[in-house]
């Protein structure tokens, strides 16, 4: 083992082992991101071409009514999806943390939706929310003839049905993360607070929730990227309809690039999506990494 060749091999082995994976990910992730960026400045239509048109695709993008709808929908969806998802997940976690019976079973039930793919969730909720088949039909069958719940087919409300299905899917997952966080809090702090005479809500509000800050951060990160790239849920639930009322940037990008022969425009929208994700992730990573160095 002590021959110079062996030592050199031992030193190079890890690098050799990592190199192919690194090269592949470099080419197929960063290389393709760069290619997409180049295409977004080109006049590409059906196939990629490299006729440079400057910012024309971005101008066309922001003049497009459909893209504006997609951006507004993204705002509504991510705001509610993240907000309601966090609140509901935290509430479920706190309730489960009260040393109740059958906690294991309940935890599994709450977590189960996460095991489904968004396609399944979307299809199931499409049936549940369809006025002629699902909830509305059922309640009317019970005798409440005037009951109306037609959000799925109402262009102004359809985006909220996507929120409902999304929150249903992810609340259990958020709950699991928070539950882990809650279990990690040192009991002695809580005991000390109780001895000092703090009420239970006060203990939660001033001690427990603030100490869950790292969990909030990671949950926020996971939910934010799910909401920005949300595609399958919308496709299965509403396919962007009625009209294009529930279009999202990801479905817009797909439609433009692959069915309308406007690869340049699609590439521009993909770049904007990447920038949106980066705007959230980069500051977060920066703060995390700086924290580590300290």
């Amino acid at each position, binding site marked *: 083992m002590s021959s110079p060749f062996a030592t050199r091999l031992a030193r190079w082995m890890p690098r050799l082992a990592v190199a192919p994976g690194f090269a592949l990910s470099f080419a197929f992730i960063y290389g393709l991101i760069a290619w997409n960026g180049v295409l977004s400045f080109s006049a590409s*239509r*059906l*196939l*990629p071409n490299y006729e440079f048109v400057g910012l024309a695709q971005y101008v066309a993008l922001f003049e497009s*009514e*459909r893209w504006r709808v997609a951006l507004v929908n993204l705002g509504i969806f991510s705001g509610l999806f993240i907000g309601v998802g966090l609140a509901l997940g935290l509430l479920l976690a706190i309730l489960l943390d009260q040393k109740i019976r059958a906690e294991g079973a309940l935890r599994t039930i709450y977590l189960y939706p996460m095991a489904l793919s968004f396609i399944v969730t979307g299809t199931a909720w*499409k049936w549940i929310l*369809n*006025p*002629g*088949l699902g909830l509305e039909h059922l309640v009317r069958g019970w005798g409440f003839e005037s009951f109306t719940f*037609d959000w*799925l*087919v109402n*262009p102004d409300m359809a985006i909220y049905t996507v929120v409902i299905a999304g929150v249903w899917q992810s609340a259990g997952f958020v709950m699991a993360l928070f539950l882990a966080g809650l279990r990690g809090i040192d009991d002695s702090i809580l005991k000390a607070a109780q001895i000092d005479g703090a009420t239970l809500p006060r203990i939660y509000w001033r001690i427990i929730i603030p100490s869950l800050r790292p969990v909030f951060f990671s949950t926020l990160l996971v939910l934010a990227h799910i909401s920005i790239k949300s595609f399958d849920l919308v496709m299965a639930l*509403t*396919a962007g*309809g*009625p*009209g*294009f*009322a529930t279009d999202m940037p990801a479905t817009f990008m797909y*439609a433009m690039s*692959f*069915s*309308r*022969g*406007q690869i340049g425009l699609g590439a521009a929208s993909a770049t904007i999506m990447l920038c949106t994700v980066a705007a959230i992730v980069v500051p977060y990573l920066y703060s995390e990494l700086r924290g580590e160095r300290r």
Partner: protein
Amino acid sequence: MRMTPTRTPARSTTRALHIAAVATLLCASLAARAGEVEVLHYWTSGGEAKAASALKATLQGKGHSWKDFAVAGGGGDSAMTVLKSRVVSGNAPAAAQIKGPSIQEWGNEGVLANLDDVAKANNWDALLPKVVSDVMKHKGHYVAVPVNVHRVNWLWANPEALKKANAKMPTNWDEFFVTAEALKKAGLIAVAHGGQNWQDFTTFESVALGVGGADFYRKALVQLDPATIKGPTMLKVLTTFKKVKGYTDKNAPGRDWNLATAMVIRGEAGMQLMGDWAKGEFIAANKAPGKDFLCAAAPGTGNAFTFNIDSFAMFKIKNTANLQAQKDMAAAIMSPEFQETFNLNKGSIPARLNMDMAKFDDCAKLSSKDFVATAKGNTLVPSIAHGMAVSSAAEGAIKDVVSQFWNTDTMTPEQAMDRLVAAAKTK
């Protein structure tokens, strides 16, 4: 090399494998010399697959081999994505199912083969109406072959339902609303509709043709003339179009077209505006045309015809043997035998004029008669909702506006016209 008895079986197996491998290679190269066509298509459903195998048999009869490259997904989006990756990597299939102005878009990319010699030898110019052959040509040269003609402006109806409502088959839009009102009063859904943007657009197209006529249709939806798009006729078209929505049920959004057809088949709904592929659903449910279901041109479009033509575009390929197979395939597609077999299975009518229609049903006969008549009378127009009239980018933008107008009750026809003008400028 010493052979011991114990090792013989292993050796002989290896040798057999070698021989098999060499034989396979030989066979493959022989087959290549005979000519092979690789055909990308998205005919994967029952009747469609049968139709495709008719073409396969014809080519095999000429000694060529057929390499099937079927990509599932009726709309063809996924097939087009696969095709793009193949063409970009320099490995185009011999033929691919591409239609309408997309043929021009592919032609502009410079990847399509020139079929002029086949066309000349078989006299395609005389066999196809000019509107159709124009679509098949890029810069005056044939690059694609039509396999069928679908008529889009059809109205389907359930005679039982009409009888129950004491109503008759409408021939113009005023009569349509009388019939629809009667059906509604009889407790039925008057118009079966699937609220997907292309179905909204299909309905819009039939209304535009019925209310405005072929000249208006051509000016507004093919030439995209801004003054026509924002004119009084378009206002009437949009108002009529929106009025149709009042006779659909509110569960329509997201419904597939064949489920809407099923509502007519079951007699829950009275009528449906849909292209002649709907006939396949009636036939599959063992219904007879004229008796169990009625077909007629969409209201007001009796002397006009919106066409949706499936076609195969031929790509430039390098291998000379395959080149001959490709030309033979182009010729075979236009042959009367293939056009008949294929369209009997697909539910559409032959693209070739002067065909014997004896084996076809009454709806197809009417369709064929109108196709020939409108080709002469210059009222044969391309369907915008099915990718025949304008570029996919402009079509998509217009489809967005039409669908938004259909779905948004607060949008006025005037606002819709302004947006249509803007959408028509999409390049």
